[in-house]
């Protein structure tokens, strides 16, 4: 495992998000109301909306463009109409004394995933 320090939890607003750039596109980091941090693809599979601009509620994110809701644990879209499908890639992330560490290997291989 190669954990990369990308910043402090206070760099992300409470119930907010920031994004990080990777060579394969942006990854969004979400901070929930109880200071959990999740990492997932920034692009909504529906129309590419920037999820880091959405509303964080519970352990979910709502896309700012068309209100698709994703579970940040699984990346699975919730409450879709029949026939719709949606999933965003999620990445291992952990907190160490307030520092946010993201797992580099999975991040690097994301184009393949």
């Amino acid at each position: 495992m190669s954990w990369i320090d990308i910043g402090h939890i206070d760099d992300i607003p409470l119930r907010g998000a920031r994004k990080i750039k990777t060579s394969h596109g942006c990854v969004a980091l979400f901070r929930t109301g109880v200071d959990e941090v999740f990492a997932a693809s920034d692009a909504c599979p529906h129309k590419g909306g920037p999820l880091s601009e959405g509303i964080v509620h519970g352990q979910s994110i709502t896309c700012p463009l068309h209100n698709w809701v994703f579970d940040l644990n699984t990346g699975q879209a919730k409450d879709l109409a029949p026939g719709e499908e949606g999933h965003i890639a999620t990445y291992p992330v952990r907190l160490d004394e307030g520092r946010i560490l993201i797992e580099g290997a999975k991040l690097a291989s994301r184009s393949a995933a």
Partner: protein
Amino acid sequence: MKKLVVIGAGMASGRVLEHLTDADPDAYEITLFNAETRGNYNRIMLSPVLSGEKTYAEIVTHDSDWYAARNVDCRFGEQIVGIDRETKTVMGEHGPVPYDKLIIATGSAPFIIPVPGKDLPGVISYRDLDDTNAMIEASAKGGNAVVIGGGLLGLEAAAGLALRGMSVTVVHLNGHLMERQLDEAAGYLLRKDLEAKGISVRTQATTRAIIGDGRAEAVLLEGDETLPADLVVMAVGIRPETRLATDAGLEVARGIEVNAQMQTSDSDIYAVGECVEFDGNLFGLVAPLYDQAKVLAHALLDEADAFVVKDVATKLKVTGCDLFSAGDFAEGEGREDIVFRDPARGIYKRLVIEGDKLVGAVMYGDTADGTWFFGLIKDETEIDDMRETLIFGPAFQGGDTADPLSAVAALPRDAEVCGCNGICKGTITDAIANGATDLAAIRATTKASASCGTCTGLVEQVLQVTLGDEFVLPTAQPVCGCCDLTHEDVRRLIKSQELKSQEAVWQELGWKTRNGCHVCRPAINFYLLADWPVEYRDDPQSRFVNERKHANIQKDGTFSVVPRMWGGITNPDELRAIADAADKYNVPTVKVTGGQRIDLLGVKGEDLPAIWADLNKAGMVSGHAYSKGLRTVKTCVGTDHCRFGTQDSTGLGIKLEQVLWGSWTPHKVKLGVSGCPRNCAESTCKDVGIICVDSGYQIGVAGAAGMDLMETQRLCDVATEQEAIDVTVAFVQLYRENAKYLDRTYKWVAKVGLDWVQERIADPAERARLIAAFELSQSIYRKDPWAEHAQTQAAQYQPLADLTLEAAE
């Protein structure tokens, strides 16, 4: 009139008569025969009568008044001698009755096992009220009772006799009780419960004889065991009573054969209830009998309908024994069981699944979800999605059920419910106690919810909390799935309960989620900041991206930037700064908007703080083109340049924009000020549209030119510019305080009524209060968010980290 004769006044034929006389009271002249000397009573409630928990009077379904009102000629206690199909006549003991249509509803007869002593006095079958009364009489002497048959009927008889004070033994042929409805596990728990009630149970016991000298004294079992018995109840089963039909030459198998219209082999003779056989099935429970009755009533009125055999559910009417069974629960290939047991509480539940359908359910001890499971069986619902949690019932599938009324119940008497008229909860509950039991009466007596009406939902909930199920709450649309309250309820409770933080709202109003969702949180955020501007501060993370970023997100993820041009007036310096910014940040599109300003479209998110800083340097601020707040004030040139102008419309527009800018509102607010009735500023389709005339200013409100096109309605006319500003501010504040989030002014005014708005604005004290409240809020929000963000939060607009280089290595 056609003549209808009915033989048998049981539950099935009773239901036929109900349907028939309800649908067309004059269709038939009806004669009703019954062998019992009484009319229709609820036969399945005989067990509680036996136990003393009900009286016969309570279970009568049709009394003599009922029959009289329907002109039914009742011939009760009269035996039928025969049916003459040739002459279409029923031969009663006391004379013949001709028929056009005949219904045979002779029900069933108890099955008497052919053992010696079966005819001794003291041996009673359990079928009708006479049997019940005979058992009650026998039990008065106390002593021992033996019930032969451990099915539904036998066990209800046993429990009733025990409660009456007899020592009861149940003798059952099969290995476990109620084997047709229960599996062994449930049968075991039932036995345990009955034994706790002092009832002895003997399974796999065959009755050989009933012995006694002149009357029943004991029951002799296989294996030579004798059970002392002062009373023997025969409850081993029933068979259809078909004697009359057989004698009349109708087709009879085990029961009287009928088609799906309940017609026998003679097209003028119908049969219904426990005496019929349909498609090889016999019927003993009440639900299919009622279905048959409906079909038969339709057939008699020449309406198309057909009886179909459905699954039935069984319940046992023994106080303290809760069991439920439905469908088919035999084991079989391709069938899967889900079993749940709680030994401590004596609970057993078993579901039988075949493929992706539930086909059977047996429950003992906890039958709360029985009806729900029964629905799944009947409707053949696919249950694959909930297979894992199915056994825990519907409450588990749909999340927690909260108490939607607890917040209202917990309100103190002095909590203000109606803000318009200052009515407290206590005033309303007092009015209810004095007989005002609906909304109209509450409005008439207290004035609560009689003005703007936004507290209607709350008043109705107070009615329900006070009156219980006497008051049926109209269904209201809750804010979202996170709560049970409407927007209006939430607004009112935020005010009356002085809820000043999101956490307070979540807790006190019973939110079901941790911190709301994208639907409710922006609304709550607005309500809090509008009602408590000083105590609560706007939470950017509860706003949609446009309002959080102070720019409109475009479909490609870039943003648009619109600086404010006060009243649509600009100058060369501003235009130069805009042109420079467009060059510097590679803005692909520059557009003039309908709100008299310039839109820079296609700005990258990271560039926002920089472009704002550049525009700030030229003296420009955010145009709030993205917000639920004041957008633009559109003006014409007015008296300065126009030959028709009557007042300084541009000047008024600029003043209004400078007063109102930065404020948050339930939805966007657009203003227009036209210098004369030619209305070049298109003021008549704005939220507030002012038209200048020689005598002053005409102020219209609640216009719109979006999906709905609405013309403004005249709020009032005023003489001076200052008054025009005051009225506009008061109107906007009234809107901020009362409207539902995302209701434009026209929707809100339609809900509360223009009269109410006019009254509030016209009241000098209220107008002054509204203006002061708005000013208090503006002391916090009348500032440029661009400057603030460019100076203090620019970093937030950049990526948290850039790993592109690292990944490339």
